[in-house]
């Protein structure tokens, strides 16, 4: 049975028909063509599919598109402001917080959620916040550095 959903993604309102079983991540990737959100597992373990719903990090592989009806979603594509990168995006690049880039969108979305409620996280805070995201390339060292760096940047008003 098809469902009509009204979802705002990165500020744009979409009204689309979806199957009941369509997962949010597939709605974003296949219906809206926003392929920055990735699928890395099938057990809600890896966090590559992390997006924000109403400002909070969630795993878009573990919810139905229909559940997001009426909600506002931010994906990695919505993090930069035009050509101006989000401080986390900048810091991931500056601190070499990514290699293959596959887990990166999810990492950045999770980190953004952390910094939203903890603007000055410790190394332990950061590592714990990343509990739901797996990176196989970086050993996390530079991801931690990147998030620390972004926190510092965001603390100083531009």
């Amino acid at each position: 049975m098809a469902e009509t959903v009204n979802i705002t993604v990165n500020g744009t309102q979409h009204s689309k028909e979806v199957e009941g079983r369509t997962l949010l991540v597939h709605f974003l990737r296949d219906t809206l063509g926003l392929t920055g959100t990735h699928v890395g597992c099938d057990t809600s373990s890896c966090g590559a599919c992390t997006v924000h719903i109403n400002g909070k990090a969630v795993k878009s592989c573990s919810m139905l598109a229909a559940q997001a009806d009426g909600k506002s979603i931010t994906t990695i594509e919505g993090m930069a402001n035009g050509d101006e990168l989000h401080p986390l995006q900048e810091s991931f690049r500056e601190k070499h917080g990514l290699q293959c880039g596959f887990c990166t969108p999810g990492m950045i979305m999770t980190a953004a959620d952390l910094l939203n409620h903890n603007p000055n996280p410790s190394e332990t805070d950061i590592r714990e916040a990343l509990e739901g995201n797996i990176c196989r390339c970086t050993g996390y060292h530079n991801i931690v550095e990147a998030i620390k760096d972004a926190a510092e940047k965001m603390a100083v008003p531009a």
Partner: protein
Amino acid sequence: MSNKYIGQSVKRVEDKRFITGEGRYTDDIVLPRMVHAYILRSPYAHARIKSIDTSEALAMKGVVAIYTGKDFENINGVPCGWQVNFKDGTTMREPKHPLLVLDKVKHAGDGVAMVVAETKEIAADAAEAINVKYEVLKAVTNPKEALAPGAPLVHDEYPDNIAFDWQIGNDKAEVDAAMDSAHHITKLDFTNNRVVPNAMEPRSYIGDYDTAYDRYTLYTSTQNPHLIRLLMCAFVLGIPEHKVRVVGPDVGGGFGSKIYHYTEEALVTWAAKQLRRPIKWTSDRSEAFLTDAHGRDHVSTAEMGFDKDGHIVGLRIKTYANLGAYLSTFASAVPTYLHGTLLQGVYTTPKIHLDMTCVFTHTTAVDAYRGAGRPEATYLLERLMDVSAHEMGIDPAELRFKNFIPPFDGVNQAGYQTQVALQYDSGNYHAVLERGLEMLGYADFKEKQAEARKNGKLLGVGFSTYIEACGIAPSAVVGSLGARAGLFESAQVRVQPTGKVNVYTGSHSHGQGHETSFAQVVADKLGIPLADVEIIHGDSDAVAFGMGTYGSRSLAVGGSAIVKSIEKVLEKGAKIAAHKLECSTDDLDFADGKWTVKGTDKSIGFGDVALTAYVPHVYPANLEPGLDFSSFYDPANFTYPFGCHIAVVEVDAETGKVTIKRFVAVDDVGNVINPMIVEGQIHGGLAQGIGQALLEGVIYDENGQLTTGTFMDYAMPRADDLPMFETDRKTTPCPHNPLGVKGAGEAGAIGSTPAVVNAVMNATWHLGVRDLEMPLTPQRVWRAMNHK
């Protein structure tokens, strides 16, 4: 010539698309009229297919086609790329690895049918409706058990489950004699645990066929597009190579698992022509666990003998390597040429013998995983060194210093000839251990450890001084060892009329940052801005040829090919410049992007020369227009990075849980183009090596079911499992390639594993713990500490 970029931590040019979500991985690609494939897999490890009924599935709305083993009866399976011979000279056994199984499934996850449908959901629904009747047979998963008389046979035609046996090193009798003379022998049984590479991007392929041009395109998450094209065209589908384009777009990590030619690549390519529609297949993670080639899985007994002064006199090893059900592309090379040849380590061991038996079992194929054979060799050596040190009452660092090969640079001193076929290029093993001990603060550490013990804390330190063979590989050498391909690399440097440069490399980046480090080399060698260089890789139509990226070979081999082409560009450029400047090429210096007449201020820039090459109005006679050169570089030798890794751990005395308190890594990877990227490579390798030591391990049950088949059961290192790493480097340049580089991709995964295990043993030695099977789960450590 001054280097503006080489040696600098230039920020990666590829990052922009990854941090904004614009990376283009295979599953992100959508082609018009594309359909989706789903592969029905065997739930059993070993079973005969009695019947397959696809009628109900075929009738479902949206199903386009269903293929089974019958469709591939006359099509070859995927081949192994490396021929190894038995000790007696006969050829290894290479069973057919069919695209879909016709008669007997040989591991859980073996492909039985492929459904093609309008959507992935429909394909999955239809696969559920296929009715396969199996006769379930007994399975064997352990390599030693597979050799027992009466063990279930993986391939009925091979009555002992042996793929081949093999040996390397000194004459066995000489080694036995050396061991007999030893004052002390340390003997250990090892299991090098089977691990799953788990690149975060699951494998994904799109096959496409263009009727108008009779041309195939395969988009594939691979580490080596050209190799896939060659294997698929020549060995599997028998289609003409020049009619096939293979594209490896952005690839989300490989770690070896995306080197190999997989059945699904050939399936989607073949079916695209049958259906005249593009077909996409993307692996689920749980499928990846069953079908991506696994790593490691050795069972060994190893003995190291010492004289009364603590010098090694001999090393004797018997190993059983589990290759799984089929021979994957590099499978036969891993336990042999990539493993046996590294058993010299960094020590002067005079007599070495490895006796290897490679075995088929009802498990997923095993192939190269980050380090490939070298981590297994390092693990044996470095565990033996630490245990021997403890047993002989010698400090483990001291025992290493005593046995190190003395420093040699490969220029003024010759390379070091090992007992196991290789000649090391250059090395200074003392230097990395000295630096490691300094960073650790070893003397202070010992005091701290004694203090911790008093307070009931189990603090331990473990060492590992590793070496590896990278820059794979001199073609003649590997050819003589059975490789069915050359292992050179190609590069084309195409200078555009405006002086901007496109570089086409046969290397493939899937996280290593080629688009940056290769560009750094090009920009400096040509004296042009980094932004004027674009590195193009991963497309067989664009790049002349390529052997791909693995074995830490990209910069040493691929980078050297680029340098060769640049040299050709500069040589021709000098002729053009000389003509314009009305002098001889001998009168010219090239620096900072311009040719200058020696002793004058007369010069011409690279951009002017490039324009002249394409607008050859004032031009040397007999010189072709254009500035575009290709080269193939075949290395003279492997490269031999080395290093010292030190782990400090604390074991929870009550639970057995191991926490890594510090990790020190001093690596010598030769010259470094981009320190930031090299450091990142080391970090990632460390995480995987530590993962193998503490967290990761495949468990098959007695029926061959993979019971660690998801991220819920197979533990991957997460951010809170790891510390900040303390890294440093030493530099002993490679003497035989133009950049002096050795390779850094695998080092972390090779050195770290034994360091961690040694540290845990050091922490618990006084409780009687000597050796433990990896991963060192809390339960295992607790049991060992409590002798349960």
